[in-house]
């Protein structure tokens, strides 16, 4: 299993402000610092760690390293207790004078920031797909419940208020799925899919949040209990609006592309 370490306590959206440093030591480096919110950290065998190699530069002084589990003075720290995706492992990564050899450098020296942004741009489509999946699960549960639960003498699915909520959920999901596939196909064609990836991610994650909230609403009070899965879907959905680039960052990316191209 693999894990990717970019985020730190002091740098999330402002990734270039990272402080983990790699000091040159002969042919290799020594890593010092702490990463936070690293998925899979407890059990990954292979880590990609992004660290500062030139303290005088910001974006152009960052590099990436492959670090293996078992490296001395390197390893997962405390595990986060989260709102959602609770079975997903999320830990800090501690390094205090952890030595890696010259072969550990991934990509060009001081080219790591650019590469990290490329990784995120390509990964967004996966997160968008995750959002679509969560939203679909919520919709399917809501439809089942709407056909069974009765109020005022009929299944709640016969009330327009519920029908309209379901219709909006389905429409959002259909659009999110199409945007995700469109971005994926662009990546398959080796195109620059920065705009499509960000659009898919921000749209799908916001659809998932709205859909899961409405799924709980459709379940009424029972939706707030652990008897039904919809409360978990709602808790799971939230992180998708945040991880791998918050919705705010996605909008920055999209706006920048628009202002470059004129939007036509």
């Amino acid at each position, binding site marked *: 299993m693999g894990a990717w370490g970019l985020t730190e306590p002091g740098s999330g959206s402002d990734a270039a402000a990272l402080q983990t440093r790699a000091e040159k030591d002969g042919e290799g480096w020594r890593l010092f610092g702490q990463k936070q919110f690293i998925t899979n950290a407890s059990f990954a065998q292979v880590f990609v760690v992004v660290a500062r190699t030139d303290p005088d530069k910001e974006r152009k002084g960052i590099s990436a390293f492959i670090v293996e589990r078992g490296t001395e003075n390197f390893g997962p720290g405390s595990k986060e207790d989260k709102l959602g995706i609770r079975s997903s492992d999320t830990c800090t990564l501690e390094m205090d004078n952890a030595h890696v050899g010259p072969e550990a450098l991934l990509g060009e020296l001081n080219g790591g920031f650019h590469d990290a942004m490329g990784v995120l741009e390509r990964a967004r489509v996966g997160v968008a797909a995750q959002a679509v999946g969560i939203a679909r699960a919520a919709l399917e549960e809501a439809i089942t419940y709407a056909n069974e639960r009765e109020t005022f003498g009929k299944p709640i699915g016969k009330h327009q208020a519920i029908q*309209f909520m379901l219709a909006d959920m389905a429409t959002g999901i*259909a659009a999110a799925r199409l945007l995700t596939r469109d971005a994926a196909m662009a990546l398959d064609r080796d195109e620059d899919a920065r705009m499509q990836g960000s659009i898919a991610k921000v*749209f799908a994650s916001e659809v998932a949040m709205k859909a899961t909230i409405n799924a709980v609403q459709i379940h009424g009070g029972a939706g707030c209990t652990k008897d039904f899965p919809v409360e978990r879907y709602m808790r799971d959905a939230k992180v998708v609006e945040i991880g791998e680039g918050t919705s705010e960052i996605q*909008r920055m990316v999209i706006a920048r592309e628009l202002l470059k191209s004129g939007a036509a």
Partner: protein
Amino acid sequence: MDFNLDDDQRALRDALRSFCDGEIAPKAAERDQQACFEDGLIEKLGEMGLFGMYVPSEYGGTGLDVVSYVMAVEELSRACAATGILISAHHSLAVDPILEYGTEEQKRKYLPKLSTGEWVGCFSLTEPGSGSDAGAARCMAVEKDDGWHINGTKTFVTNGGEAHVIVLFAVTDPDDPRRRLSAFIVEKDTSGCRVGKKEKKLGIRASSTTELIFEDCVIPKEQLLGECGHGLRVALSTLDGGRLGVAAQAVGISQAALEASVSYSQERQQFNRPICAFQAIQWKLSDMAIEIAAARLLTYRGAWLKQNRRPYEAEAAMAKLYASEMSSRATNAAIQVFGGYGYIEEYPVERLLRDAKITELYEGTSEIQRLVIGRQLLTQPDWVAQG
């Protein structure tokens, strides 16, 4: 399903873009102010083949696929929403039912002239007392020896002013709830058929929206369209296709709003910088772009399904619902980007807001679209899983 436009589609879009920017967009504001299409516009559109897109070449058209068609409606609407619906209503609501339900004689009689724009088409279902509740129509068609005798009043007929060919829905059996309506082709110059009031509207002001009044209008028996009693089915299946056109119109209007907003935000300076430097403005632009991308893909998907003769009723409803509501949001945001100038007629965005609203209403209100989608979800839960 690959939404990467092929070379032919891209070439068509580029040609249309150029035509629309040069010939359609410059007079959009004047059309809105005068509330009519200028002389020569229909001929110009006809020369570009824009009245014959849906029609197979054997009947005189260019036989484009549905994705290309919706793309064309989007391009026209980006330049001028009223021109967009002129073409969309003609194709989706008049040409299409004749293609789908017409006899060979009817197709040979009507499609060639509809293809060139010599005849413009329209669709007449709505009445003062029946909009969403289309089945409650009261305009009557009674069969006698000399043909069908039609009496009644229709309202809100898009293209009512320009059209020669009317696809009309009238009651042929008032007592049968399932087979109450039938569809007919009526030529406007038939005695007893006349255009009534022309509506003054909030938006798409150049598009004619008229009453049609039938006072013992007699049409030949051969002008029954489809089977007697199948009128509601013809109407609703025709509207499914129409919804794709309206969705495309909404996307086009929104695209115009976005481009105007991006451009303005780069020029207008406040606090010593262009307003696009502020995140508040960047957010509006990016939200517009996101929603336009989503709406366009929903529209293309509906078009692709129709092209491949797969069920597409709920997908068309989704596209229309989403794109129309999105266009109101996008045009509203565009005015906001322009600030006070957005409210002034000299700038294009106030017209875009006024034009967008109708897309949430005609060819099935948003409420009707939600009923269609909701019904699909509750009766076919697998549909969601299959994507």
